[in-house]
Every structure is written in C-alpha cells, then in structure tokens.
C-alpha cells in the first residue's frame, strides 16, 4: 500500500520519458529533406555496392567490458537489500557480506593485473 502511492509518480515519469523518446525518434524523420530517385539505388561508379551488411565485426574488447560490467551490475543488486536491512542484521550476515565483497575484490584485482580493462 505504501508503494502504490509512489506508482503514480512512476507512471508520470514513464509517460514523460515515453513522449520524449518518441519526439526524439520522429523529429529527425520529419525534419529531413527526402529526395528519392533511382540513381541512389545503383552501384557506385568505382564498382562498390552502396548497400552492405550492417553487422560489421568489431573488437572483442567491447564484449569483454560489457560482460565485466554485467558482473558488477549483479554485484550491486546484492548490495541493495543489504543496505536496506542492515539494521536488523546479525554479525554473521554482516561478515557474509564482507566475504562476498572480498571475493569479488580478488576478481577485480585479477582483472587489473591481467590488464583486461586497459584500452591501449
């Protein structure tokens, strides 16, 4: 019941963000000058094809950074209920959280030592 009050604000925020994203999406479409003729679809004079595959392969380091981001994202989701319920906790559950953070810090040190996050 406490939360249902706050849902109205979330709904208002959702509508605002939806409207803003729709405006930004369609603004470029309407402001653009469109001159369509057949020559645009033809091949270039040098012999290249004007339309290619949109999925070019790119560096694997983007993927690495994305996965490492995802892992720390999941770590933060465990920190949310910890921070809420820290008043009603025993020492055991607090130390379990410390073990969790220490193990993930070991992983973070491993990342930095291996140079996975260096963008040279």
């Amino acid at each position, binding site marked *: *019941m406490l939360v249902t009050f706050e849902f109205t604000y979330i709904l208002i925020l959702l509508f605002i963000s939806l409207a803003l994203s729709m405006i930004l999406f369609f603004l470029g479409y309407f402001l653009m000058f469109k001159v369509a003729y057949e020559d645009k679809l033809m091949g270039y004079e040098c012999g290249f094809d004007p339309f290619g595959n949109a999925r070019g392969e790119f560096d694997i380091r983007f993927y690495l950074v994305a996965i490492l981001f995802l892992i720390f994202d999941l770590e933060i989701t465990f920190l949310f*209920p910890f921070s*809420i*319920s820290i008043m009603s906790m025993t020492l055991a559950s607090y130390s379990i959280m410390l*073990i969790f953070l220490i193990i993930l810090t070991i992983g973070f040190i491993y990342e930095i030592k291996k140079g996975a996050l260096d963008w040279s």
Partner: protein
Amino acid sequence: MDSTLGLLVILLGIIMICTLVILRSVNPIYSILNLIVIYGCYAAILLTVEMEFLACIYILVNVGAIAVLFLFIVMMININIVEIQETMRKYNIYMIVGIIGVIGIIGILITNYNIRLKEEVIADFSMFLTTSESNQLTVVPTYLDYYTLFTETTDIRTMGSNVIYGSQSIWFIMACIILLIGMVGVIYITEDLIIEKRHLNERRRQDINSQVLREYKTTIRNYREIQ
C-alpha cells in the same frame, strides 16, 4: 484481486505472442527485442504480487544481459538469413505444444482461483436489488489505513533480513563464486586475442626522442667500416 486476474491473463497472452514471434522471426535482433517485451511482462506479473524489488531487478539485469547479447549477435554470428528459414520449419511442432501449455496455465489460473468480477456477481443478484442498492454496492469507500503503513514491510527488506543474508546465505556465497568464475573465465577466453593485439601495438610504437637524437655519424658507422 479480480482486476489482477484479468491483467495476468493479458500479460500471459502477450508473453505467448512474443514467444511465437521469437520462434518465427528470421532476424535474431527481432527475437531479442521480443525478449525485452517478455521480461517487461514478467516484471509486471511480479508487480501484481507486490514484489517490486524483484521486478526492478528483472528489468535491470535483463536489459544489461540483452545489451551483451546484442554485441554477441553483431560480433559472433555470421549467418545467411535464407538458411535459417529452412531450418525453422522443424520447430513448428514444438510451437503447437507450447501454445497448448500456455493455454493450460491460463485455464488452471482461471479455474483454481475461481475469481469472478465484482460486477458479474452484482449482475447475478440484480433481480433481487433495486437500482440504487446495486449502485451503492459498486461504490467502494477509500480510506488510508495507517496501521498497515506502520507494520508492512517491503519485499526487499524481507529478502535482505531473512532470506539472502540469513537462512539462505550459503547460496549467496555460491552466487558470489559463480560471479567470480564468470569474471575469470571471460578474461581467460579473451586473453590470447588481447595480448596478441597489444604486442602488435608495441612493435609499431614510435619513440620520438630517439628518432630526433639520431645522428648520421653513429648510424652509418658500420657502413664505413665495410667500405
């Protein structure tokens, strides 16, 4: 509760349509976009049973995972669209079975809970009532119950104080170790590629100081000796 059931049926219907689109769509990016819709529907179902934290986490984690999946599709999969269309036909039987399963779930929900809309109940007894009485029944008085505001706990507080760090804390440590394995495994897989690229960059490196300080007397010394 009566409106909740209708919402649940609508959400399950959306999920069913989206799973059909995921199976039928040729382009994997369209199936991922439908996956986002499905997780949104799951989050809405969790909201109906007052699990706000889990719903938020569903959206947060799955949007992150789906961003990674986008990268995965763009990078790794190099496929011909025509080939998929031919192999898609063998999944048609599974789709029929899946439809029957979802219809069964909806049927169980409707029959088990046996919940009727309040308007229907009033309409059944409307012959015994005058119109003013039935109008009175439909009006629900709304007031703020301050006692529940003090005593209620949200699901995030229950999970934090009782479940994750309390009785089920061994699984919490297991989740931590799984996250560590994911972190180390990704670095181990991509290690060779990244180190190779780094060596290439080191060989190509430019040292401007030594280039400027270079003189012809020291560099052409060996050439003179040969002559």
